[in-house]
């Protein structure tokens, strides 16, 4: 977004003179929504970010959480929505590059990636092109840098046909004592390492801070192009620089390029900076000072070291053949002075540049949203088996194998539970112990587009359940809020409500929101916002990765138990959309106190070794969770639906497809049923055995003695594993 008239006046007052072109470009870049959070900063203060185990909260390039004594996890989420809409391959690839570099800034080793993709209908030719190239971009980049892509989330919806949401997250591992927490000091040297600076991505952050234009070709110059080989070299060399204690401070040259990196660093530590642009290693010799300041060329990082260690730093960079330039140093002035060939081209106060005034944006609920919440009257399906197959075969339900098999999820030999096996991915620390972490990302764009408060809250709750279901203890989350145009009060309302929903649920579940990102201007070419979406990525701690739980049924004769209560909550459900073509209704009520009780019970059951497989119940409802367990385990089920604990349920479709929160399915030995029921009542959780695992090729559903339907396991497995590939490749 170009600067507003008021902003230009303010800049004149800050500088005390007519701004030079370079100075104006620096302000435009840094004061963009993408870099400055000017429209979101005030509301983001609502998010709880403190806890005993939080070492670094929001503010740095990435937060850090102590998961075990002396072991820290650094993790962060990022969006590359706008670049991916214009150039899906490079847009998605450079999203991976950027998030990995954020993790490197704290000295952590990147050990896992997640991709959270909200994509258009793959049967639409344009959306199909986006889907294939976004996945290929992540595959080619992520695989080449040797960081496994272990988990994610995918949603298909025609609202994303032109403007997809590409959110990526990275997880890093570092010894707490090696975390780079030091501050740069006056006299310290500034190096730019990695890729040379070119003309790509000029003012890319500014481009990401406005709606897509009609003619997207014009924006192509604002999309960066990635080079994963240099990124991999950066990963290796930073690992060694940190291990040998040669650097003090690192920052990514991401959105806003050099301008953002130096102005934020100087502002954060009350420093001034002197830099010499002609020292930068460049791709093209005719770059102007302005272009050098705002270029967003990828795979560049700013590293800070003192003069005594410079020689060793340089030796190491040369050994690994990583290009670098020493461009300047810090001082006490509080000003950023930029020189080009001995000429002063910019002189601005660091703090004023880094932190534009926050904007208090007005918001109001769109009237048509309220209308979506009215009661919905639908006929009960005549053919329930047909409805089940339609929901189970929905692209929002079926296996994501077509996507995750294009990712190297095993490199690094930490991946204990890879994609497709469990509710969350599990990684071992690989430190000779059995300790590890669980990671998962979740969103439901339909929920947040109908009721952003509940949708935001439910995304947090679902991530929490997924982490619990594998047997981990959830520790922290990061959020990505994908919203529309903050200048439009009816768009901004969604953002405000999503923040409040996340803040409330995170508080209730005692999950600190340690970091996050905001993406505005996710609109189509007609100025309509795409479905506003809250994406949550969470991590959990695991003491023994060999005891983690997968979703696949294990054994003939086991009992299937449901934990939690099912309410008539079909609003905004997958069933309502797939079978009745309705995207409306009341989004399921978030139930934090029940979430906490069921989660405590789950952890107790897992500690007692009672649970053989576990699965959280979410989109698609009870029946989908049951079928997923059967299909992945290759075993059949006999289920009596009359045994499901319910409240207010009157119809079979409500029972099968309700998306009530705070529910899990577990597979257990029959002999433990009484002990588990006793524990459930101690934890004040409704629980009931609803059926048995059978070594047969079908799933039989009945209600008391009334037979409802019998579904063929092989047919369902074919649907589950191949439907997505068919939809994309035809």
């Amino acid at each position, binding site marked *: 977004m170009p600067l507003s008239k008021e902003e230009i006046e303010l800049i004149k007052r800050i500088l005390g003179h007519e701004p030079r072109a370079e100075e104006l470009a620096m302000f435009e870049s840094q004061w963009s929504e993408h870099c400055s959070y000017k429209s979101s900063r005030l509301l983001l203060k609502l998010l709880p970010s403190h806890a005993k185990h939080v070492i670094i909260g929001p503010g740095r390039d990435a937060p850090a959480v102590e998961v075990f004594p002396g072991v820290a996890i650094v993790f962060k989420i990022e969006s590359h929505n706008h670049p991916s809409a214009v150039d899906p391959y490079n847009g998605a690839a450079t999203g991976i590059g950027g998030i990995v570099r954020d993790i490197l800034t704290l000295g952590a080793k990147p050990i896992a990636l997640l991709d959270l993709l909200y994509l258009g209908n793959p049967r639409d030719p344009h959306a199909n092109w986006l889907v294939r190239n976004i996945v*290929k971009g992540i*595959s*080619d980049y992520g*695989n*080449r*840098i*040797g960081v496994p892509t272990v988990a994610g989330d995918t949603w298909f919806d025609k609202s994303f046909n032109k403007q997809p949401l590409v959110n990526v997250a990275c997880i890093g591992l570092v010894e707490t004592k090696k975390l780079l927490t030091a501050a740069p000091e006056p006299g310290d040297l500034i190096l730019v390492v990695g890729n040379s600076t070119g003309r790509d991505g000029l003012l890319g952050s500014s481009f990401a801070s406005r709606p897509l234009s009609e003619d997207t070709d014009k924006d192509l110059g604002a999309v960066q192009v990635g*080079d*994963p*080989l240099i990124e*991999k*070299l950066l990963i290796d060399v930073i690992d060694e620089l940190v291990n040998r204690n040669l650097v003090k401070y690192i920052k990514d040259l991401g959105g806003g390029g050099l301008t953002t990196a130096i102005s934020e660093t100087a502002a954060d530590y009350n420093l001034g900076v002197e830099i010499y642009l002609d020292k930068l290693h460049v791709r093209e010799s005719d770059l102007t000072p302005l272009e050098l300041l705002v270029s967003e060329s990828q795979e560049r990082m700013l590293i800070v070291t003192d003069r005594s260690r410079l020689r060793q730093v340089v030796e190491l960079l040369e*050994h*690994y*053949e990583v290009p670098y330039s020493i461009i300047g140093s810090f001082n006490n002035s509080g000003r950023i002075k930029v020189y080009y060939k001995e000429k002063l081209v910019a002189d601005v106060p660091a703090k004023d540049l880094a932190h534009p005034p926050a904007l208090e944006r007005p918001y109001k609920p769109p009237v048509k949203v309220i209308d979506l919440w009215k009661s919905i009257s639908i006929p009960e399906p005549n053919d329930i088996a047909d409805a089940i197959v339609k929901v189970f075969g929905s692209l929002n339900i079926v296996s994501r194998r077509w996507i*995750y*098999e*294009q*990712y*190297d*999820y*095993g*490199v*690094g*030999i930490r*991946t*204990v539970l*890879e994609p497709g*096996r469990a509710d969350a991915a599990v990684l*071992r620390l*690989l430190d000779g112990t*059995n300790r590890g972490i669980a990671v998962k990302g979740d969103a439901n764009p339909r929920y947040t587009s109908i009721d952003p408060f509940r949708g935001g809250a439910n995304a947090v709750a679902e991530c929490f359940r997924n982490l619990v279901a594998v047997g981990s203890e959830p520790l922290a989350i990061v959020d990505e809020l994908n919203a529309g145009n903050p200048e439009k009060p009816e768009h901004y309302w969604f953002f405000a409500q999503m923040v409040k929903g996340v803040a409330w649920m995170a508080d209730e579940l005692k999950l600190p929101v340690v970091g996050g990102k905001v993406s505005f201007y996710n609109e189509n070419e007609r100025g309509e916002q795409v479905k506003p979406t809250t994406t949550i990525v969470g991590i959990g701690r695991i003491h023994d*990765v*060999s005891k983690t739980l*997968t979703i*696949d049924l294990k054994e003939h004769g086991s009992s299937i138990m449901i934990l939690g209560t099912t309410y008539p909550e079909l609003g905004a459900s997958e069933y309502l959309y797939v079978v009745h073509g309705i995207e409306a209704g009341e989004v399921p009520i978030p139930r934090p106190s029940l979430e906490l009780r069921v989660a405590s019970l789950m952890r107790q059951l897992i500690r007692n070794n009672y649970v053989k497989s576990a699965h959280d119940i979410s989109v698609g409802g009870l029946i989908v969770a049951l079928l997923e367990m059967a299909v992945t385990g290759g075993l059949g089920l006999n289920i009596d639906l009359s045994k499901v604990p319910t409240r207010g349920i009157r119809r079979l479709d409500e029972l099968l497809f309700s998306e009530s929160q705070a529910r899990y399915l577990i597979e257990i030995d029959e002999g433990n049923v009484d002990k588990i029921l006793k524990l459930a009542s101690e934890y004040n959780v409704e629980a009931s055995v609803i059926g048995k695992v059978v070594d047969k090729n079908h799933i039989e559903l009945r209600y008391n003695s009334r037979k409802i339907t019998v579904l063929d396991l092989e047919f369902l497995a074919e649907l589950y594993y191949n439907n997505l590939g068919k939809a994309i490749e035809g």
Partner: protein
Amino acid sequence: MAKIAILKFPGTNCDYDVLWAIKSVGNLDAEIVWYKDFSVKGWDAIIIPGGFSYGDWLRAGAIAARTRAVERIAEAVSQGVPVLGICNGFQILIEAELLPGALLLNDSGKFVCRWIRLKIEKPKGPWLLLAYDGQEVDMPVAHAEGRYYVEDYIQIEALPKIKYLDGWNPNGSAYNIAGIGSSDGLVLGLMPHPERAAEPILVPRGFSTGGSIVFKSISKALKSGW
């Protein structure tokens, strides 16, 4: 104690994984060696691990195969030092013509990461010392250019081979070839990743630790010959 060099190029990414497997499963000493620092002397065996040397630019393995380090590997082979190439390492050995055939883009046109079942045929040499003919093993693959091609099967008929079991060929390889050795088995290359299949904790339900045979074999071979 025998010592193994794990050769690292710009873009190699399975170096640490192989180091871990060599130490924890093979109980051998090993070191990651930057390609420029590599010399033949002092190594009892050499492994070129997986990854994307030089970003797979041009063709997978093509640039690394033309480095001084790989010339030295050819010297090492002539001196009787065992060499193993895994995934990108296999691609490099093929590009360097230390093993026959070619590795092409997968028939799906896409990268594929998946556990598969394999069968070892005519095992020979230090890397497959403990394997028997027809032994079935499981490992994951993770590659985009792994479709093996050879003009005539006669060229490779007598060689040690690792084949995908019928129905498990992930890339359209000719004759289900997943890996191939030199006639004496001193050089072995394979697309699947033994280092990811050497510990039970990494193995999904329904598969087994098929990779450990490689590390146990080299360990025994370097201790008591082959």
